[in-house]
């Protein structure tokens, strides 16, 4: 199915829960309200004409200093879906505020979300509700802060934690 048809189908099904759609550079994108995210992802995965069986990537963007978006929700969690059967792609995004940075976990749908979500938690401090094991993935346990946030200075040094005596 081509991207425009996918977006039109989602629009019919989810109506007002679909905040925005666009296709910049041929990447069809749906921005969805957080409450509808689990339903939309499950629909994308299970509905046969869509059959997005691969969660290719899951990441986040911090829009704190993005010109024109300083006042909007700070984080955007980005899902890149791919369907092996139909050979089509879709990008799904959900926006969350800093003081309520929680997104429903996608682990029940795709087990790979486990590590991707751990990385987003590690790097951005966005929590995933229902995640079975939300530990840091790349940084160490004692690390303070979330390094890919725009307000984390690139040159901040933290003491490396030695062996406990």
């Amino acid at each position, binding site marked *: 199915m081509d991207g425009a048809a996918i977006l039109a189908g989602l629009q019919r099904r989810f109506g007002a829960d679909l905040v925005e759609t666009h296709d910049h550079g041929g990447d069809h994108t749906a921005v969805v309200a957080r409450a509808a995210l689990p339903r939309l992802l499950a629909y994308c995965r299970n509905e046969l004409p869509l059959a997005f069986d691969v969660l290719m990537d899951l990441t986040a*963007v911090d829009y704190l200093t993005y010109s024109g978006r300083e006042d909007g929700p700070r984080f955007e969690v980005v899902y890149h879906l791919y369907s092996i059967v139909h050979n089509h792609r879709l990008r799904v995004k959900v926006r969350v505020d800093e003081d309520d940075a929680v997104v429903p976990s996608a682990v029940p749908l*795709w087990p790979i979300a486990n590590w991707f979500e751990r990385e987003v938690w590690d790097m951005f401090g966005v929590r995933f509700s229902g995640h079975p094991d939300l530990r840091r993935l790349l940084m160490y346990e004692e690390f303070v802060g979330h390094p890919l946030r725009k307000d984390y200075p690139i040159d901040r040094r933290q003491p490396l934690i030695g062996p406990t005596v």
Partner: protein
Amino acid sequence: MADTTRREFMLGEGSGTGSGSQNLHVGMGPAHPAMHGIIRILTELDGEVIVRADVEIGYLHRAFEKECEAGGWNNAIPYTDRLNYVSPLINNFGYCSAVEKLLGIDVTERCKYIRVIMSEISRICDHLTCIGASAMELGAFTVFLYMIKAREYLWELVEDVTGARLTISYGRVGGVKADLPDGFAEKTLRALKETREVLDEVHRLLTGNRIFTDRMVGVGALSREETIAYAITGPMLRAAGVSYDVRRAQPYYVYDRLEFEIPTQKAGDNYARYLVRMAEMEQSIRIVEQGLAMIPGGPVNVDFEGRPIDPAAYVDRGKQGKTDGLLLVPLTLSPNLQGQQRAASERINADDKRVILPPKENTYGSIEGLMNHFMLIMEGYGIRPPQGEAYFPVEGANGELGFYVVSDGGDRPYRVRCRPPCLPPMAALHRMVEGEMIADLVPTFGSVNMIGGELDR
């Protein structure tokens, strides 16, 4: 613990440790000879059988994504070299293509062919390293030496083209650093012939070898469904029977004009992965051969008429206003800049002043060229893609390598995300090794072909 005898402590039995046997926790890594790169696998063993495994990564985290945000768009290219450091060219091109998508520019035909040829050479290097290293861990040291020998021929080609072996930084947004050197086609064909012979030898040494097959067949298997659910791509997915390859499914550059097969296997075990990688190298060789035959402009042979002058004299003449006809005079470039002469530059780079540095003749010889150069190099200027986002997938050696770039219209990337192809298999590694012997952890881990630079970024 005072009343625990050594035997009780070691075997986990007897009065000192409670009654009966208990599982033993063994950590492999971070510094373990079979853990290429640095990674820690915590295993819980019942005898020799792995009951549970937990994979801990991040030991090679270098803040790739954060560093990319700190410099200009082209400044990220050297960082991408260090992602998958066995096939760095593919990373270069993947990142450049993502930014080109954001800018909406198309690279020249010749550049597309160069990218395809260099990507496939890198893919062969990567598979050679993977198979060679896994075979060595199973005791087949000869295979390792043979394969590294073949890789050496190929890395010499890479060195000829890029000037470096590992940290190549050859891609540029809108093109590549330099054109192919003289005699590249002949040298490549010779190297490919050598590589074919090595592959043939390795086939005879390993494919039917009892010691090798006993350790590989049926080991580390992952079902087709689970492979897909874990978003595993590349040779591991194809070994499980799914013929997904970005080069075929969503062709980029000129892959849709080239003939090649997507090798697949059914079993999804280590042996199937080995067979897929061996077959893929053969296909990559075919692609390079076709690419060399089809590349427009033929073998590069830049031949200027007239007397070349050196850059310092060129700049002096420009400064003195003696610019009449200056742009037509060829320039002797330093070896570092070989392949960037005006004629070559036009062949390999997109025609877009917002992105591409002018050829050195123009920079040294005309005020327009100099301004153009400064506008791309100076702090606060440079490439400025419009606001937006783009995701560009390429087929890396281990699977789909995707770059997701976000621009806020500035001269620096707002966000660069690399989708590392070896992260999903590492996330699924515990599923592959649980229930198997601890000795099988090594070949299974080898078949994943984890590259620390890419996994931890």
